[in-house]
């Protein structure tokens, strides 16, 4: 027993030395997670800025000019054309000069004065669903804000007597980045630990050192533990580096408890390393290990709720996401990071991850024993 412990410790030390001694692998363990994190932080954002739009103002009144000033001043829109006739709209949209055309009716000011609804027409480029949809939403809210402001300035009562005043909790400015970056802690570390684990066995197979290892007194389960722990250590380091980028670079305030975060991370890494080990017992070469990881990482990411809400998926796929450790990791990190969720709130996710780890690790151990050699 004590021999086994020493053997495992020797293997862990050897694995860490192999990764950290080589300058190339040292760099490739730390730099890509940080780069990916920065890339996601800037590139993966649904927040719109400077959406090109075309204006057709039939009214040309003081009120319509004030309305256009509100649009232009919002920061979300940039006027690329001011049109004279409705026939010019289609050219602007079709040629992709503008994503939207805003049409102000001739009686805009008169209708406002009369206290009735002023029908501003928005024509959007439906080929670009996400941008167009979000931009339309922006126009509506800017319009509503403009109207209520105009009315209060002109001494009118708000028409319906009720104004909706929304406030977003946990992410007051609705910034995508606040949602995205904490999710990356799980996503990036899962990818990296899986590749690392699958590669560490495949590399030994290719170099012939795996057989050397198998003829020593190492048991398959000991090799498995000795391969799993270094990957988990590296995964924790990577998660920490992403956490630092989130707080120090993107300045996203951390609301939760580090103890809870690292506990969840440990569970999640154990579940992902199990999958990595499973892959490594199948892959004969490093190339197969890499392709295998990439192939299975894609569905894991799609079914995780990282980019698209799980509640939007077909029911069958929603059930499938329950098997995905990344789904729980993302939901947990968001809750911990932004909401300061405690263990009692995270219990469902924690139990689910525990269940996944309790399946992947023993299956990997079984595969290890039966597919070695």
């Amino acid at each position: 027993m004590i021999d086994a412990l020493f053997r495992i410790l020797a293997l862990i030390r050897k694995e860490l030395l192999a990764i950290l001694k080589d300058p190339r692998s040292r760099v490739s363990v730390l730099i890509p997670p940080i780069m990916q994190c920065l890339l996601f932080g800037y590139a993966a954002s649904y927040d719109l800025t400077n959406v090109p739009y075309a204006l057709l103002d039939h009214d040309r009144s003081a009120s319509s000019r004030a309305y256009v000033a509100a649009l232009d001043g919002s920061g979300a829109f940039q006027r690329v054309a001011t049109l004279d006739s409705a026939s010019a709209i289609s050219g602007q949209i079709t040629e992709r000069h503008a994503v939207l055309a805003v049409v102000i009716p001739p009686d805009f000011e008169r209708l406002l004065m009369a206290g009735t609804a002023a029908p501003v027409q928005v024509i959007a480029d439906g080929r670009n669903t996400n941008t167009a949809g979000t931009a339309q939403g922006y126009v509506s809210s800017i319009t509503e804000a403009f109207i209520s402001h105009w009315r209060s300035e002109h001494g009118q009562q708000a028409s319906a007597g009720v104004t909706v005043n929304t406030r977003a909790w946990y992410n007051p400015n609705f910034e995508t980045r606040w949602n995205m970056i904490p999710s990356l802690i799980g996503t990036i570390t899962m990818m990296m630990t899986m590749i690392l684990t699958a590669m560490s066995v495949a590399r030994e197979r290719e170099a012939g050192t795996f057989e050397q290892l198998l003829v020593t007194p190492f048991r398959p389960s000991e090799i498995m533990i000795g391969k799993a722990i270094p990957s988990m250590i590296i995964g924790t380091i990577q998660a920490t580096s992403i956490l630092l980028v989130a707080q120090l670079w993107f300045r996203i305030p951390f609301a939760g408890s580090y103890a809870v975060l690292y506990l969840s991370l440990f569970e999640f890494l154990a579940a992902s390393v199990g999958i990595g080990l499973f892959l490594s017992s199948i892959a004969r070469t490093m190339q197969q290990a890499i392709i295998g990881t990439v192939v299975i990482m894609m569905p894991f990411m799609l079914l995780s709720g990282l980019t698209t809400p799980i509640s939007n998926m077909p029911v069958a796929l929603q059930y499938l996401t329950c098997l995905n450790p990344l789904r729980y990791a993302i939901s947990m990190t968001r809750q911990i990071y932004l909401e300061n969720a405690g263990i009692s709130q995270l219990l469902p996710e924690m139990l689910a991850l525990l269940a996944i780890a309790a399946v992947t690790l023993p299956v990997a151990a079984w595969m290890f024993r039966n597919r070695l050699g």
Partner: protein
Amino acid sequence: MSPPPLPVVLRGLAKRFVRDTSETVVALDQVSFRAEQNTLTALVGPDGAGKSTLLRILAGLVPPDAGQAEVLGLDVAAAPQAVQNRIGYMPQKFGLYEDLSVQQNLDLYADLHGVPPDQRREIYHSLLTMTALAPFTSRLAGALSGGMKQKLGLACTLVRSPDLLLLDEPTVGVDPLSRRELWDILRHLVHQQGLTVVVSTSYLDEAEFCGHTVVMHQGRVLAEGTPAEITARAAGRVFLASAANGMAARSLQAHLFRHPEVVDAVPEAGSVRVVSTSPAPPQEGLAELALQFSPTEPRFEDGFMVLFRAVAREQHSSAIVLSRPPAAPAGSISVEVRDLVRTFGSFTAVNHVSFQVKRGEIYGLLGPNGAGKSTTFRMLCGLIPATSGTLRVANADLRTARAAARARLGYVAQKFSLYGDLSVDENLDFFATAYGLRGHRKRERIDWAKEQFDLGALSSLASGSLPGGYKQRLAMAAALLHEPDILFLDEATSGADPLARREFWGRITALSEQGVTVIVTTHFMEEAEYCDRLVILDSGRALAEGSPADIRRHGQRSDGRPVTMEDAFIAIVENWRQRQEAS
């Protein structure tokens, strides 16, 4: 009209490489020689002598750093493509397409070289007849034996009818029978078809098939001349020695090889072949052994060793002393294999093989690549399961045995398989812990290993950057840290120079004298002389088993020289194949 230019003229060729570890390797240094029209020239030397680099420069694949290479009258560095259009070059790993048939491979190479369709029928016919591949044109290249693959590679190289043929170690890993056939083909090409051939080899006995030999070592030309001229360097200095007290040949060999008056000593046919530094046999300090020396004819390897020892490093001590020799009683069975079978799909790699090895014996598994020796070996080590039959190693089946059983064996793989990124110390530390050594005892054993194998000065170097001979020593050191009862060595001498191979066998002999059982595979037939007993494997079958003397009795020679292990192997395989055809 002036005579045609010489096929190969080299003047002062030099080439260096810088390894990943930023260590500079001198591959070629001041190499000059010429090959005449219509001759067979062999580049002979151990691995790392620079043979492949030289051939690659001749083929215009790498430029030399200095010096000039002229091929067929053209400067290779200036016009590599013009040279490549007229030569045939077969690298060590020839690019056969394993999923294509023999015929499709030939067609492909004919297309690549633009051989006109109207000439193909005739060319194919003569190549297929010469290589005896005609009956197999529709077989997939991947399903051919090692020897047949090399012949097909040769045919593909010859399909464009080159003016000069360059072959890089065409016989490595090929069984002795096919090796002889390949050499017959080469001689036929030179003598009947007027081709000029330059071929490299690390099998010294093959040099005798050539008209001209260039002996290389560490990038330099040690000597050149006809094989007889090289052989003559050892003339009058070669003796067969035997001890009156019946001392085993390999123990006597180990003793003599360390003697200052001895250039070379190898076991041969029950006695020891000795090359002396002078025309008299070595004497000093040997009186008590009462040795009998009888003069014998030198052969190429003797001449080679005279040249080689004049420049090679001092040999290291190959003595090795275990602090705790194996406890099992002498004469007990260490390894037992009965009716062992291993199939891969419909292919039977090992076909009902049985043998027994006693404690302290050196037991050899001999055969060409694909004979089934590696598969047998891997089953013994528990790396793959047997299809049927029983296997006992140290009274356990290693496939299912607990860790304790594996702790009693040491394993040295064919390829260097320690961790290349880790230093010598880190590797030794890791394997020591893996074998359950800790604390004071671990330090003691690591110090022992570093001292025995002369690794002390290299302890902090990455093991992957060690020179070849030291890698081999480190692998042995790691396998002996825990003082195993049984040592498994898989092709441990392939890629080692002749001196390193003799040192290696010196250590193995010392270990076996202390009671360690050694199982070894090799494709160097002459190394069988170091074994107590051996089994000859071919196509998965054990064709003969016994002591080297028993095996040698199967062979015969018409020229009156003593029968070598290779003669015996060829006789055994041919015999078996004839019986197969008869039944």
